[in-house]
């Protein structure tokens, strides 16, 4: 079977689409749903630009097939801001700290930091020290900033996200 019909919930909206089985989730989001904020850098899981949240966990959308997302719930960076365009607290924290330059890596960083904040809110062990944030964000590559301002933004976002569990994972 070379194509298959899948039903996924993307940013709260249920979509049923027939896709080629070889379609990656990233290409499905970008090409079939027109959600082009999810970026593709390396296409083999290294750069983190394509990071999305699937069923509550950050995952690479370039290293899974769209058919594997059948029945799952996906949040992309387009799904974070409010209906009136109000920035999500993570986006606001990153904006306040001038965390980005060219913006190519931005969606991946935002989703990784969003994932960390959601885990923290859920009471799971989340790294909150600067060193731990750097470690956690080592799966996202930025070629502009030197990371300093991104770590500043992540630190601010995590500080605003629920109570500190006091654990550094």
């Amino acid at each position, binding site marked *: *079977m*070379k194509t*298959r019909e899948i039903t996924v919930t993307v940013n709260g909206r249920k979509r049923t689409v027939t896709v080629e*089985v*070889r379609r*990656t989730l990233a*290409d499905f989001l970008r090409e079939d749903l027109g959600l082009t904020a999810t970026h593709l850098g390396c*296409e*083999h*899981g290294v750069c*983190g630009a394509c*990071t999305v949240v699937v069923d509550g*966990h*950050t*995952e*690479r959308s*370039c*290293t*899974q*097939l769209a*058919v*594997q997302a059948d029945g799952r719930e996906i949040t992309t960076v387009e799904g974070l801001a409010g209906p009136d365009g109000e920035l999500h607290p993570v986006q606001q924290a990153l904006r306040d700290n001038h965390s980005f330059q060219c913006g190519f890596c931005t969606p991946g960083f935002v989703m*990784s930091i969003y*994932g960390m904040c959601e885990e923290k809110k859920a009471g*799971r*062990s989340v790294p909150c020290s600067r060193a731990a944030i750097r*470690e*956690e964000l*080592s*799966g996202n590559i930025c070629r502009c900033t030197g990371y300093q301002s991104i770590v500043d933004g992540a630190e601010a976002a995590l500080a605003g996200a629920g109570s500190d569990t006091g654990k550094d*994972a």
Partner: protein
Amino acid sequence: MKPPVFDYVSPATLEEAIQALSAPDDGDVKVLAGGQSLVPLLNLRLSQPGLIVDINGLDELTGITEEAGYLTVGALVRQREAELSDVVRTACPLLHEAIPLIGHTAIRNRGTVGGSIAHADPAAELPTVAACLDAELVARGPGGERTIPAADFFTGFFTTALAEDEILTAVRVRSVGPATGAAYEEVARRHGDFAMAGVAAQVRLDGDTVAEARIAISGVDLAPVRATKAEAALAGRTVDDSILDEAADAAVADLSPSSDLHGSAAYRKHVAGVLIRKAVAAAAARAREAR
């Protein structure tokens, strides 16, 4: 940089999955678990299978259980789930230490324990842990289930004893008792990269002396290497600087890693020696705390 054309099935049961693997005329058939190695290979077209058998729907391959002195981790357990599992942390501290070194959180949220072992990258953490602990690797094929000791499982470069129509279903290791500590040390260019060399060590103490040491090295051969001479050098001794040197020298003398753009053979051997000292010292210190 896009996957080639292939056929795809997502069986609901293990039996159906095994049948799909046995189906003739599909060319190369690949099992897709977490996909964190296979999908990159597809994207790069280094792998061009005729059929992909997606096993993510097989609930019988999930779950972490500890029973009768053995920890069993289903092949489809996500690495992140095992990383956060209290059962894993107490029953198999080496696995708990090793998993955070795999890729990044977003990779471990998807990647599976069994997938990494079946992929058998000689630089990867989980095959090295399996070799170190002589894990039992449970496989199911058309003829039923069999258990393969890790020593027989890793047969070469990205090659295992699994037959074409067999699926790795679970990984089983003996639960650790008291006075046992573990450590995993590796050197990689960046966090999350495959290691140039890595060392898994588990030490059980009897009083102050080593009752049992288990050491395996990654990245220095076609498959993980068990450092049996170093283990023997440590047995019955008290861990101190001189015995650590002796063990590291014994292990490194037998290694003949290859050179590549990440590191020369000489550098890899040097790193392996340093990591053996660090890992065994850390494992022994943890074993003392666990007495």
